[in-house]
């Protein structure tokens, strides 16, 4: 039902009827717009290239360039250390993938608890609110320390002892508080009339949530969720304080051993290689959402 209406709306918005032929004047207009766009692209490209060339020339011509080059852009050092850093990065990838799944589940759960309205659930709501306040307020690194050194110190049966697992738990606790707030904002962004309409159609409260509210809420907050995911990827480096060798720590060990900062560059490249595509994707989603919202003006 919903699909049909959106399809119809899209059709209206973009006006792509079968029998539509643009008038000569409209074609003229489009040609002009296209040529303008080409010209703008060229100018933008040339300006960017010129700026980069000027910047590089300024950097290379500076008196300290040789020192910087050997200390930060040392090819031999890069080749020597990159494999170990790449090996460490595999641990980062495992940590943020596992953590992200848990964070999304836990965050959504907390947001739903906070969105309930039954008076009997007040203690749960309070607990969720306290959780969010506390874990958003505590610096992530502190949490990593507390969980990483505190949990094993309790000497309890069944607590995980793997440092990277403990670190991942800490990241989950911290980030699910952020993500819970993002989800809550999404839930609040759905107009109350939607709920009323669904209830009027005879859907039960859970059904309403599942088929009407949640899909819209989640769709509205995909970009901020991706932002949090990117932040999480970089914060996996904090787990290094517990001992495991992730990419940044491997880079630090090599840098400190040879007194050369190039390994850090290798680690930075790896993180960037993951975060930039995600950032671009988040931007695209945001743009598409905006276009959906005001399809008229987006041409």
């Amino acid at each position: 039902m919903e699909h049909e209406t959106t399809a119809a709306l899209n059709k209206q918005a973009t006006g792509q009827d079968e029998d539509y032929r643009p008038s000569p004047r409209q074609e003229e207009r489009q040609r002009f717009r296209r040529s303008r766009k080409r010209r703008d692209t060229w100018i933008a490209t040339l300006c960017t290239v010129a700026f980069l060339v000027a910047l590089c020339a300024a950097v290379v011509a500076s008196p300290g360039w040789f020192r910087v080059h050997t200390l930060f852009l040392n090819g031999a050092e890069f080749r020597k250390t990159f494999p170990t850093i790449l090996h460490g990065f595999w641990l980062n990838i495992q940590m943020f993938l596992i953590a992200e799944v848990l964070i999304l589940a836990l965050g959504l759960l907390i947001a739903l608890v906070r969105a309930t309205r039954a008076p009997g659930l007040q203690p749960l709501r309070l607990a969720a609110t306290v959780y969010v306040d506390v874990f958003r307020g505590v610096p992530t690194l502190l949490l990593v320390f507390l969980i990483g050194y505190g949990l094993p110190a309790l000497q309890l049966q069944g607590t995980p002892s793997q440092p990277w697992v403990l670190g991942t738990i800490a990241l989950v606790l911290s980030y699910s508080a952020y993500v819970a707030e993002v989800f809550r904002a999404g839930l609040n962004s759905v107009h109350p009339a939607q709920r009323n309409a669904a209830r009027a159609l005879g859907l039960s409260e859970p059904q309403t949530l599942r088929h009407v509210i949640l899909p819209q809420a989640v769709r509205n907050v995909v970009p901020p969720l991706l932002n949090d995911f990117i932040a999480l990827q970089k914060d996996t480096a904090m787990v290094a304080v517990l001992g495991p060798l992730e990419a940044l720590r491997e880079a630090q060990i090599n840098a400190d051993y040879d007194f050369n900062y190039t390994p850090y560059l290798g680690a930075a490249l790896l993180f960037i290689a993951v975060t930039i595509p995600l950032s671009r994707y988040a931007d695209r989603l945001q743009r598409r959402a905006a276009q959906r919202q005001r399809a008229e003006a987006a041409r």
Partner: protein
Amino acid sequence: MTRARIAFAASVGAALVLTASACAPQPSSTANASSSSSTSASAAASACSTSSPDLYKSGQLTVATDSPAYSPWFDNNTPADGKGFESAVAYAVAAKLGFSKSQVKWVVEPFDNSYAPGAKNFDFDVNEISITPQRAQAVDFSTGYYTADQGVLVLNNSKYAKADSLAALKGARIGVQVATTSYQAVQDEIKPTHQPSVYNTTNDEVNALQDGQIDAIVTDMPTVFYLASAELSHGQILGEFNYDSATPEQFGLLLKKGSGLTSCVDQAIAGLKADGSLAKITEQWLSASADVPHLKQ
């Protein structure tokens, strides 16, 4: 429209030019004042006064170390009190250079920053830094003032408490401190099956050892002695091993690459070795005990 555009472009251009001029190279008064470290002794002697132009601040010796500064190298994280081995060495070197105790100023320099290029905010950095040829490409080192062996520390009830060779530690989970040569020593000499865990501080290492996260700590011998006596109530020193026996590992003072002070500091350390005061300081602060077993392969 176009006029506004031209004005905008012009202002951007002006901003760029201004930025560029702001980033113009510094006048090379100190940038290239690096005297080669092989200056003749007479020339070096004049440069080694308390008002030498190579000093970070004339009339004072600025000495750096990391914080927290641990025993037995320093005492109570207060390097300025002259207690602890490296604090004592720093003051002894200062005295040889002609600085009184009050003319020595201590600054904090995290290890990761100590080898950054560019100007330094200290004259020399004393921080248990091992001298390696690779490192010497980025900074200047004084001659070594201490020869360090690697030591192994375990808990009394550990299953490795009876280990009597490096090979016996192969299956152990080993903890080392970041930025130390111990990591490389473990990888090269013990070749453990588990990846070593790397910690920021010795405190974290000790915690991990007590929590059972790791089986053994490998670090330099004096630190092992200190940890065994002061931090671990039921730990024991398993033994020591030489890392790369061809060239014994030495701690050196770190100076800016091409610093004019390097030769002065070298002279000072040579003097301290010659008159026996370095041996006395070592004896006083690093009570090396002789009954530590030597671990072979």
